[in-house]
């Protein structure tokens, strides 16, 4: 069965320092993986997606994620955090029928 686990419910970084949000997945086939961001009381915005092309995926706002099949991971990174990056981040895996399975989310706080 497919599943996704976000390893941290909350991450706090200082502005200008790197961001790492961890995600592990379980899938019986080569999955499609996504990262979405949600600012308070807003809908979800697609940051990036992996669909079996390049393993290093670049997204919007300077974020990127690397698909590592051997580790079943899809961690999200950014070299330098901005205050505007403070939000909830969801790692998502897609089932073959198109349905999505969401992780429980990681809340990112950015300190000045």
């Amino acid at each position, binding site marked *: 069965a497919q599943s996704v686990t976000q390893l941290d419910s909350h991450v706090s970084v200082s502005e200008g320092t790197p961001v790492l949000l961890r995600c592990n997945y379980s899938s019986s086939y080569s999955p*499609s993986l*996504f990262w*979405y961001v949600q600012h308070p*009381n*807003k*809908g*979800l*915005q*697609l940051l990036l*997606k992996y*669909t079996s092309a390049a393993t290093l995926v670049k997204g919007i706002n300077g974020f990127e994620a690397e698909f590592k099949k051997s580790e079943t991971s899809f961690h999200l990174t950014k070299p330098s955090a901005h205050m505007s990056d403070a939000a909830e981040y*969801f790692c998502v895996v*897609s089932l073959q*029928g*198109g*349905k*999505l399975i*969401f*992780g*429980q*989310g990681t809340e990112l706080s950015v300190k000045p």
Partner: protein
Amino acid sequence: SQTIHQWPATLVQPVGSPLSLECTVEGTSNPNLYWYRQAAGRGLQLLFYSVGIGQISSEVPQNLSASRPQDRQFILSSKKLLLSDSGFYLCAWSVIKETQYFGPGTRLLVL
């Protein structure tokens, strides 16, 4: 470009009252449409999805129903709201099977 609208943005309703939330998509034809609920501090739960007019699939038994009267319109309804129906309701669309794009959401508070 495609856009997705949801209204109302916020709604406060008494227990036992009816509900109607609307979602419309512009700039695309025959999209797949989805309703999700996000309870406080939790991830998203898929409630309904639709692959065409009048075609609704329910993911979880509950107090809610969905309808798709037009190609780009998706409605979430209830005849009698429960306290447990409170949450943030998100509509999403997709054309390519996997990538879903989300609307701004409706915050529902049932008192």
